[in-house]
């Protein structure tokens, strides 16, 4: 009986998460596009819904809500469904939509998308070989095999995003890095842009007039075609057409210049807005946060280096260690069991919420930046895939932040994975990502002032 109640609670929450994913898709991601293939929206919402359910189960585990056996059952079921989606459904649909965009293969869409999916499976399988993730006693199609590979990809993504985020966050928040932009700079650039446009226009006017006079005189401007045409054009060529090609080249160069100027002007406007924002109260608050985050970022990089160099994997989670410290060193006595449950709930809850929110914001920004009306379907599905893998691996890593008694269910469900390997891998990729982001941002920052200060 209680199993039924538990299941209905789970199903209701799953529907809620599905609805949230649907709304997010419609309101945020696909704001400017028209949804023509509802399959895409359904897949995205389903992935989001099941990923959130996994987090919900962790929270239930900590709080002790629901029956233990029904929790275990739902874990298993949820995991199977998510793996099915991430390994079978989403890649297949990505292949299908990619093939649909190519006109030549339109007729045999299904065949080619199956081919693409098989290629994906091959590489996905090969991914597991170089890593010491599993003991070989498991069968081919077991959950452990799939999860281990999904975990590797997801952990890599998490570490990359984490590293870049840790460095980028103080860089954007702190106003120390803002370049000084005055209105005269912007006006100067705008003037240059308009001048370039005027030059392009005058050259195009000449070309249009020349073509018109040629057309009126009865000459036909045809490009040399074929082998004999090319040989002929070497020796004899109409003077008009030669002139035109020359002007056309100049126009191409000028158009490239105008594009550069446009992008630089947009950049200057953005910097000016940021400067004005930093003078407001909110801006000052973020600036202060920026200093705090930069210290945190440096500490994290330091800890990652130490972990790798000294080959150390933390044995206890922050909650238990914090309690140990307060009890042993500060001498404050309190009910360990009670508090550890609540504190780990709060900590894990914060981690989950911030990572979901952070991921959704990053995905939205990424989507706006690179999508167009043709490729929007494929990109959304790619984002759904990334999101699913990200959430699955956060479950793997979150295990480290929980006290021992709550870790058991994750260990039970996910099987005998080498969890320590994932943490080590996370540290390595985090370090690499953070250091390369620092290098990248440093170069970009140095290069920018020289570009627009030139007379």
């Amino acid at each position, binding site marked *: 009986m209680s199993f039924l109640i538990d299941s209905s609670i789970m199903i209701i929450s799953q529907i809620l998460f599905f609805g949230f994913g649907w709304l997010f898709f419609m309101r945020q991601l696909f704001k400017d596009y028209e949804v023509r293939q509802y399959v895409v929206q359904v897949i995205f919402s389903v992935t989001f819904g099941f990923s959130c359910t996994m987090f919900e189960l962790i929270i239930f585990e900590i709080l002790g809500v629901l029956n233990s056996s029904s929790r275990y059952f739902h874990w298993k079921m949820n995991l199977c469904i998510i793996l099915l989606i991430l390994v079978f459904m989403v890649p297949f649909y990505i292949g299908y939509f990619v093939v649909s965009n190519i006109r030549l293969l339109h007729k045999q869409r299904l065949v080619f998308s199956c081919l693409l999916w098989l290629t994906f499976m091959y590489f996905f399988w090969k991914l597991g070989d170089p890593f010491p993730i599993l003991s070989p006693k498991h069968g081919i199609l077991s959950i452990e095999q799939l999860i281990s590979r999904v975990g590797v990809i997801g952990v890599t993504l998490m570490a990359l995003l984490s590293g870049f985020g840790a460095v980028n966050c103080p860089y954007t928040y702190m106003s120390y890095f803002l370049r000084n932009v005055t209105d005269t700079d912007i006006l100067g650039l*705008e003037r240059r842009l308009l001048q370039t*446009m005027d030059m392009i226009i005058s050259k195009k006017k000449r070309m249009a*007039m020349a073509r018109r006079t040629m057309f009126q005189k009865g000459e036909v401007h045809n490009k040399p075609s074929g082998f004999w045409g090319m040989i002929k054009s070497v020796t004899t060529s109409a003077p008009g057409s030669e002139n035109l090609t020359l002007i056309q080249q100049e126009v191409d160069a000028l*158009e490239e210049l105008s594009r550069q100027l446009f992008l630089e002007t947009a950049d200057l*406007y953005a910097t000016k807005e940021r400067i004005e924002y930093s003078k407001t109260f909110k801006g000052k608050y973020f600036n202060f946060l920026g200093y705090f985050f930069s210290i945190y970022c440096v500490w994290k990089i330091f800890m990652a280096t130490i972990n790798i160099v000294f080959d150390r994997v933390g044995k206890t989670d922050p909650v238990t260690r914090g309690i140990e410290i307060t009890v042993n060193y500060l001498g404050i006595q309190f009910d360990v069991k009670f508090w550890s449950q609540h504190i780990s709930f709060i900590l894990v809850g914060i981690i989950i919420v911030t990572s979901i929110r952070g991921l959704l914001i990053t995905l939205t920004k990424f989507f706006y930046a690179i999508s167009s009306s043709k490729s929007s379907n494929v990109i959304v599905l790619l984002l759904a895939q990334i999101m699913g893998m990200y959430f699955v691996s956060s479950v793997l890593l979150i295990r480290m932040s929980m006290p021992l008694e709550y870790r058991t269910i994750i260990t039970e469900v996910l099987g005998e994975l080498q969890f320590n390997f994932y943490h080590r891998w996370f540290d390595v990729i985090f370090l690499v990502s953070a250091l390369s982001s620092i290098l990248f941002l440093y170069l970009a920052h140095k290069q920018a002032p020289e570009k627009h200060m030139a007379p």
Partner: protein
Amino acid sequence: MASLDRVKVLVLGDSGVGKSSLVHLLCQNQVLGNPSWTVGCSVDVRVHDYKEGTPEEKTYYIELWDVGGSVGSASSVKSTRAVFYNSVNGIILVHDLTNKKSSQNLYRWSSEALNRDLVPTGVLVTNGDYDREQFADNQIPLLVIGTKLDQIHETKRHEVLTRTAFLAEDFIAEEINLVIEKRYFLREGNQIPGFPDRKRFGGGTLKNLHYD
């Protein structure tokens, strides 16, 4: 050549509706083979004989300014785009007949372009609401063009064309629906085939523009 008068026409619309193809077709009399994203603004020029055949015939340069981007761009991009909206003689609004959102976004596009003169500091104040009053005393002629008519199935064409007729009425604009193809144009059911007739079509489009 500089002695000919110039007319500046903006071509606005969402990403991917076919503005660059349209401009290329009007100016080069050729279909654009490999359309790619427009960054910033691309300009093309067409020489046009106004009131051809009459004693008041005058030749003009028509500059078609094809501004790229979307209505949802960052405000810094919008401020940069605003520099192109100076002293405009006419606006062509392009939308995709297969994509409803691109037609709805036309309201925001026209507000962005027409409000340029009211807010000289470059900070655009648009709340997205559509106000017909705003267009009532608008002196700049508008033309609404719907593209990709051939991609709509025969049975749905009537419904789509009625919707776009309402759209054009809202703007107090002239409307043309067309197909960018090598062979023919469709103008509200009339067929004007072939290239020799291109000039006549061009004359029909631009008869709204006067330049004193």
